[in-house]
């Protein structure tokens, strides 16, 4: 097979490269080095700058395929899939990594069908198999209770989406240099059926919880919606985001974009506070790859303590105000 090179699909939003683009480069660099092949970052948009393309190189790419066109301003899956499928046919990459974001998890399955190849969702580990050079893709399944390793032995490219925050972003190395290839959009690839009519931003403190380094989440133990105030205060000390269990969302204490878990969002922050959350298997599936987990719950037998790095068993209405008080003291030091 004459497929060569590792590709990462970069993402930009509101004129900024998303952090996850750099995480993919850190994954991709490791794979490209093992294969002794080129690492290419593909990025589509309408206003990606030369500096941003340079940044992708400084963070690990050998080459950047840059395609700017007003028609690609919005992510429309049919257009993006056509364009990427066309590039795959032209360049024949061996591996393509995208982020397991709403974009990656939409465009990758769509184009995996068109290119007749395999795709593994939401990977938390990637490696190269010694003897065959195949990509080994490891992902949690069944609510995170198993880790399955999957490969695509006979089809190319091998494709995976990668869980955001599951690795560190590649750092800038000012000495790196590479090639920036400016691509022209072949207008015949535009699908033209779907129209974007508008966009409504989340409420102020619903900052994208999947991007947050710190999340303070509340559950049924909070007893009423107003008590999320102390969770917000706790998150505030870390410039973090607020999260919630399904129980809290189902009781209308907080809206759905905050929900962490199988029927909500999967998050991997550096620090996760689970307050008044018992740790149902569905909730754990959404947060248990967090780096540090702190649990506060009055029930010693709650499953959340099993995954916690630090837990306090007791009345959260006493513990959280005390925690907020001591954090305030730390801040003022």
């Amino acid at each position, binding site marked *: 097979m004459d497929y060569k090179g590792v590709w990462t699909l970069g993402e930009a939003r509101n004129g900024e490269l998303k952090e996850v683009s750099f995480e993919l480069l850190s994954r991709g660099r490791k794979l490209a080095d093992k294969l002794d092949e080129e690492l290419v970052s593909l990025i589509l948009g309408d206003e990606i700058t030369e500096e941003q393309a340079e940044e992708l190189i400084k963070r690990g790419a050998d080459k950047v395929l840059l395609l700017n066109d007003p028609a690609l301003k919005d992510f429309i899956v049919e257009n993006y899939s056509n364009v990427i499928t066309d590039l795959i046919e032209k360049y024949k990459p061996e591996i393509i990594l995208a982020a397991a974001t709403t974009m990656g998890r939409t465009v990758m399955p769509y184009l*995996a069908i068109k290119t007749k190849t395999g795709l593994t969702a939401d990977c938390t580990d990637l490696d190269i198999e010694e003897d065959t050079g195949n990509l080994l893709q490891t992902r949690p399944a069944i609510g995170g209770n198993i880790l399955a390793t999957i490969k695509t032995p006979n089809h190319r490219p091998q494709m995976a989406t990668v869980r955001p925050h599951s690795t560190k972003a590649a750092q800038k190395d000012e000495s790196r240099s590479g090639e920036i290839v400016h691509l022209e959009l072949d207008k015949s690839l535009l699908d033209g059926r779907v129209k974007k009519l508008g966009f409504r931003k989340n409420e102020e403190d619903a900052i994208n919880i999947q991007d947050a380094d710190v999340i303070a989440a509340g559950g049924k133990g909070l007893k009423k919606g107003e008590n999320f105030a102390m969770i917000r205060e706790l998150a505030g000390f870390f410039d973090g985001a607020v999260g919630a269990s399904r129980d809290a969302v189902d009781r209308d204490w907080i809206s759905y974009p905050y929900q962490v878990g199988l029927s*909500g969002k999967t998050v991997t922050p550096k620090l996760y506070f689970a307050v008044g959350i018992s740790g149902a298997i569905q909730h754990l599936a959404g947060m248990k790859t967090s780096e540090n987990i*702190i649990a506060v719950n009055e029930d010693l037998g709650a499953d959340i303590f099993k995954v916690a790095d630090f837990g306090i068993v007791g009345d959260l209405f006493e513990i959280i105000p005390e925690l907020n008080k001591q954090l305030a003291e730390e801040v003022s030091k």
Partner: protein
Amino acid sequence: MNIVIPIKQVPETSNVKMDEETGTMKRDGVESIINPLDLYAIETGIQIKEEYGGTITVITMGPPSADKSLKEAIAMGCDDGILLSGREFAGSDTWATSYALSEAIRAIGEFDLILAGERATDGDTGQVGPGIASWLDLTLSTYTSKVVDIKDKSVIVERMVEDGYEKLQLPLPALLTVVKEISFPRLPTLRGKQRSRKVEIPQWNLSNLKMKEDFLGLNGSPTRVVNIDHPKVTRGGTVIDVRNDASIEKAVSQLIDYLKSKELV
């Protein structure tokens, strides 16, 4: 409006406990249920049918016993069910599954809308819905949180993305994968249950449905599972019990020390 809803039967895991020794799920006596996220698709379909008329066909690929889930969907208010079942489908990955489902949907005939749950709670890939859209060359909205309107042979939806909601207009036929926010699933009614008992569920496979055999099952699947690990769930962290004494201040200060040691404060 003719609506097709692909669903999946999954193990009921909401009350499942973990075996701490092995890190595996205790599966004894675990019941099979409709994938909980598919219920939102079913409810959305029924609401659309109530407003615009039409029929709803639910379809699943699975063992013969998966007809139980189809019957349940019919008891909620869907009209017909189709079961894709046969040895030729065994070992299908998301590529092969979406192929088989798309061929079956093609065979159902004219449809306007396909509604699917965002993902299944067991495989957790979220790839089959978009895959079906791709096979059938339908317009696609994933993470759909609201059907705003259906008019002029198109559907207007909101879809939930990381920082907000996008509003899209998709010409029909379209495929929507839906998230929980879109609806609150109803329970089956007694009358629905009675009706579902009478509905014949046809079983489709290679013997009565034209499909490319080399696209089916394990043979048709580009991916292979090469290893399954059971990760340790328990972290063995510090747990301080302050229920019966007044040491809250001290426990919290230990927590702050922990956060400092991890350079999080």
